[in-house]
C-alpha cells in the first residue's frame, strides 16, 4: 500500500573500533552500489581558534590539500580524481571534515592518502603554499560574503548572538586581517595541536569488506603517534549577555530589498528539545504550507520569502535562523509585527496535528536524502561519534524526531522564540541618490559609510 507508515532508517549495520593510538574507526557495509566513502572528522573547528587568529582552522583545511610526505603538491586531488573519486573538506564552528567518495576498488588509496597527511603534513608545508592558500581563502571570502548582497549577514548576526569572548562569536571564514596575520608557525602549531589520531574519527561506508578495511586502516594509520596537547575550546554553552550588549543592527546598504533577519538561541543539538525546536521552525518557516509563508507571502503579501531554519550546534546553543525579504514597498516594521504575532500565537496554541505530521514528514525526507549516499552516511556517523560519542545514535535519530509531541513543540517555542532571545539584523536599500554617492567612494570606505 502506498499510504503506509513512514519508512524507517533503522538497520544500518555499524561497527566501531579504536586503534592503539586512539583513532576511532566506524565501519558500515552496504553493497547496493560499488562505491565507498571515507570520511575523517577532526575535532577542531573555529571555536578552538584564539583572538587574532580567526579563520585559521579553515585556512588550515586548505593546507591539507597542499601535499604531505608521500604526496606532492596537488597530488591528493590528482590521485583521488584520477582514481574516479570525488573529494573535499569543510570547516564549521565545531569540526573539520575531509571526505572522499571512491569507486569501491579504490578505497585503499583514500585511506593511504588520509593517513599520509595526518602523519606527515608538516614535512611538506611551506610558506609558499600558505601564502597561496591565504590568497585563495581571501577570494573565497570575497566571493561568498563580501561581494554579494546581504553576504555578511551571517557573521554579523552570529557576532551579536554570541557576544565578544564567546568561542562562537566569529564564523569559520575569519577576518581578512587575521588571515593576513597567520604565520607558518601558527599553521605548524595548529597541526601539532589538533591533527592527531586521538582527536579524529574515521568512517568508511559502502561496498567494503569490513575486516579488510580495518586491516588497511591499521596498516596506514596505526603507526601515527598520538599526542595529548589539545587545547579544548572555551565553554560555549553559557552565553553571557551583559546588560547593554548590542542585540540589533540596522544597515543601509546597496541591497535589492529590505530584509529582516534574526538569530534565536535554541537548545543544544543532541537534546530532545533541539528536535522539538527543529519541528517548531519547520512548521513556522519551512515550505509553502508554513505559518510564515501563509501569513507573510500568501496573505499579507509583505514578503517574498520568509524562512526559518535550525543551525544545530552541540557546544553552544543552536541557532534559529530567520530570513525575510520584503515584497515591493512593504515596511520592515509590518513584517516584524506579523512574525511576532505568529510566534506568540504558536507559543500559545502549539501546532495542529496536521502541522506536526507535515513537519515530521518533511524532516524524514531530508533525512532520507542525507542518508541516500554513502558519503552522507559516513558524515553523519562521524558527527554522532565526534559530537555525541556514539555513531550508532544515527539509527535512532529519525525515530526521536517522530516521537516529539505537539506540547513539546509548543513549549520549546514558548520558551525560546521570544523577542528577548534573539539578535536582529535589518537592511534598508540605499536611496537612488545615495547609491550614486556611494559609487564614488572606494571599497575601503564603503563599510564606514553604511554603518554610520
Amino acid at each position, binding site marked *: 500500500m*502506498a499510504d*503506509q507508515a513512514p*519508512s524507517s532508517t533503522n538497520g544500518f549495520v555499524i561497527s566501531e573500533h579504536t586503534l592503539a593510538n586512539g583513532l576511532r574507526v566506524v565501519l558500515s557495509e552496504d553493497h*547496493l552500489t560499488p*562505491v565507498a566513502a571515507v570520511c575523517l572528522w577532526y575535532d577542531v573547528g573555529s571555536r578552538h581558534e584564539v583572538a587574532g587568529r580567526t579563520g585559521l582552522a579553515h585556512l588550515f583545511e586548505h593546507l591539507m590539500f597542499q601535499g604531505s610526505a*608521500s604526496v606532492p*603538491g*596537488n597530488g591528493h*586531488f*590528482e*590521485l583521488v*580524481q*584520477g*582514481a*574516479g573519486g*570525488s573529494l573535499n573538506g569543510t570547516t564549521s564552528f565545531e569540526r573539520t571534515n575531509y571526505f572522499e*567518495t571512491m*569507486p*569501491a576498488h*579504490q578505497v*585503499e*588509496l583514500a585511506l*593511504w592518502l588520509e593517513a599520509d597527511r595526518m*602523519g606527515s603534513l608538516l614535512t611538506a608545508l611551506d610558506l609558499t603554499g600558505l601564502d*597561496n592558500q591565504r*590568497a585563495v581563502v581571501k*577570494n*573565497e571570502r570575497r*566571493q561568498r560574503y*563580501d561581494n554579494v548582497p546581504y553576504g555578511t549577514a551571517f557573521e554579523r548576526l552570529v557576532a551579536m548572538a554570541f557576544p565578544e569572548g564567546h568561542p562562537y562569536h566569529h564564523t569559520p571564514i575569519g577576518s581578512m586581517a587575521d588571515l593576513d596575520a597567520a604565520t607558518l608557525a601558527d599553521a605548524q602549531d595548529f597541526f601539532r595541536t589538533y591533527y592527531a589520531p586521538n582527536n579524529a574519527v574515521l568512517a568508511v561506508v559502502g*561496498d567494503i569488506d569490513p575486516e579488510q578495511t580495518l586491516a*588497511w586502516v591499521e596498516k596506514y594509520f596505526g603507526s*601515527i*603517534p*598520538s*599526542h595529548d*596537547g589539545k587545547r579544548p575550546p572555551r565553554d560555549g554553552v553559557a552565553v553571557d549577555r551583559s546588560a547593554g550588549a548590542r542585540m540589533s543592527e540596522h544597515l543601509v546598504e*546597496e541591497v*535589492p530589498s529590505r530584509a529582516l533577519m534574526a538569530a534565536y538561541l535554541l537548545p543544544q543539538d543532541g537534546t530532545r528539545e533541539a528536535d522539538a525546536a527543529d519541528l517548531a521552525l519547520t512548521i513556522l518557516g519551512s515550505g*509553502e*504550507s508554513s505559518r510564515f509563508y501563509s501569513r507573510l*507571502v*500568501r496573505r499579507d503579501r509583505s514578503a*517574498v520569502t520568509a524562512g526559518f531554519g535550525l543551525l544545530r550546534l552541540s557546544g553552544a546553543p543552536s541557532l534559529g535562523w530567520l530570513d525575510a*525579504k520584503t*515584497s*515591493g514597498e512593504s515596511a520592515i516594521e509590518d513584517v516584524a509585527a506579523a512574525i511576532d504575532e505568529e510566534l506568540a500565537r504558536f507559543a500559545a496554541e502549539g501546532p495542529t496535528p*496536521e502541522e506536526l*505530521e*507535515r*513537519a515530521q*514528514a518533511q524532516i524524514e*525526507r531530508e533525512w*532520507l*536524502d542525507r542518508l*541516500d549516499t*554513502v558519503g552522507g552516511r559516513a558524515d553523519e556517523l562521524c558527527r554522532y561519534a565526534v559530537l555525541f560519542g556514539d555513531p550508532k545514535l544515527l539509527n535512532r535519530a529519525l525515530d526521536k524526531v517522530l516521537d516529539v509531541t505537539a506540547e513539546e513543540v509548543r513549549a520549546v517555542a514558548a520558551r525560546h522564540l521570544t523577542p528577548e532571545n534573539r539578535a536582529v539584523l535589518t537592511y534598508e536599500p540605499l536611496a537612488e541618490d545615495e547609491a550614486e554617492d*556611494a559609487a564614488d567612494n572606494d*571599497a575601503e570606505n*564603503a563599510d564606514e559609510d553604511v554603518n554610520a
Partner: protein
Amino acid sequence: MTIASAMTFHPRPEAGEATPWAFPAPTRSVLPNGLTVLRCDRPGQKLVAVQLLLDAPLADEPAGLDGVATILARAFNEGTATLTAEEFAGELERAGATLDAHADHMVLTLSLDVPASRLERGLRLLADAVSTPALPADEIERLVANRLDEIVHELANPSRRAAFALYGELFPADDRISRPRAGTADTVKGIDRAAVADFYAAHVRPATATAVIVGDFSAVDFDAVLADTLGAWTGTPAEPSTAAPVTADDSGRVIIVDRPGSVQTQVLIGRVGPDRHDDTWAAQVLGTYCLGGTLTSRLDRVLREEKGYTYGVRAFAQPLRSAADGSGRAMLAISGSVDTESTAPALADTWTILRDLAAGGLTDEERDIAVQNLVGVAPLRYETAGAVCSTLADQVEQGLPDDYQAQVYRRLAETDTAEATAAVVAAFPPDRLVTVLVGDAAAIAGPLKDLGIGEVTVVSA
C-alpha cells in the same frame, strides 16, 4: 611529553578489482493517453525522483510576455480542482514530498521528490497539479508580484547579472534565448491569469509530455499506480514542437557591467559550440575538463593554485537548445570570480593558457587522468535516484536516445589526446570569445584594452 616516533610509510596502494557498473537502462513505454514514460527501478533508493517534461518551449511564449511559462510552472503548485493552494502545499508536505517546477528553453519541467513509501500520494498530487490546475487569479497575481521582487535580487547578484549580459550579447535580440528565461520586469508585469491559462491550454497535454520515474518501486504496484494517476490525465493530440537553430555572434569583445565598489570581478567568458548530438561531444567534454573541470585543470592550476587570484574558475559546456538534426548548440563558457585588482592579470593568464593549449595541445597524462575521472566517477555520480532521473530527463529534453549516457562513457574511453585537443581548441578559440565582467569599471577597465581580447564596452548595471 615524550618524543613520539614517526609514522611508518607504505608504498601507494594499487587499485583492487573494479566491480562492473553501467549507467542504468530505463524502460520506455507509452500510456493510452499518449504520455511517454521512462521508468528505472533502483532497489534501495528510498527517495523516488520524478520529472515530468512538458513540451512548452520558451520560444512559444507570446510576444511581450516573456516569463509566462515560468509563472505557469510556479502556478502548478497553487492548487487544483479539489484543493486550494494552501491545501495543496499541505498535502505535498504531508507526503514528505517536494514539487518544484521551472521553465527552460526546451521544456517546462515539474520535479517531484517523494519517499518510496508514499509514491502513490506523490504521483496523485503531481497528476492533479498538471491535469486540473486551479490557476487562481489571486495567486497568479501574487506570483507575478513575487517574480518582480525576485528580478531585483537577480540583478544584484554578480553571477546572474553576468549570465544575463552574456546571453544578451551572444544571441540575436529576436531569439528568445537572448532574454532571461523567467522574463524581465517589463514583460512579467503584463502577465495575468488569462495569459497563463492560454499558455497552459496551448502547450500542456499528455501526448507531448514525458515522465521519468526513478527509485525503489518495491512498495507499489507500479503500473496500477501509474494508470490511476498520470495515466488518467487527458488531453488533445498534438505534434511535438521543433526547436529553431541557434545562431550567435561570438566575435571577440569585452563587456564590463559596472558595479562600483565590487571587491571582486565576476568573469564569464563564452560562445556557442557543438551540443550532445555532435560526434565531437565526448572529445569536447574531455578537453574542456582538462582546461577547467577541476582544481588541477589548466586554469585553476595557474589562476588559483599558483597565483591565488580566485577561489576557483571552471570551464564547461551547457546545452541550450538541441535538435536531432544537429542544429542545436551548447553554451561553452569559462566562469569564476577574481579579486578586483587581479582582473587584468587573470584574464591575461587565461588567454595565455588558451593560446598555449592551441599551440602545444594536451598531454597524454592529462588526457588519461581526465578519462579516469570522468568515466570512473560515474557510479558515484549516479548513486541517487535523483541524479539518474536528471540525466534521463536531459536526454529526453535534448532528443537523445535512452542509452546516450552509457554511450558517452564508451566514447570518452576511446577518445585520444589529439581528438580531445582538437575539440577543446575548437571550442575556445582565443579570438572568438565574448568576455563579460561584472565589477568596478573604474578599477578594471584601463588595463583590459592592452590585452588584445577585443574592444571594451562599459555598460551600467
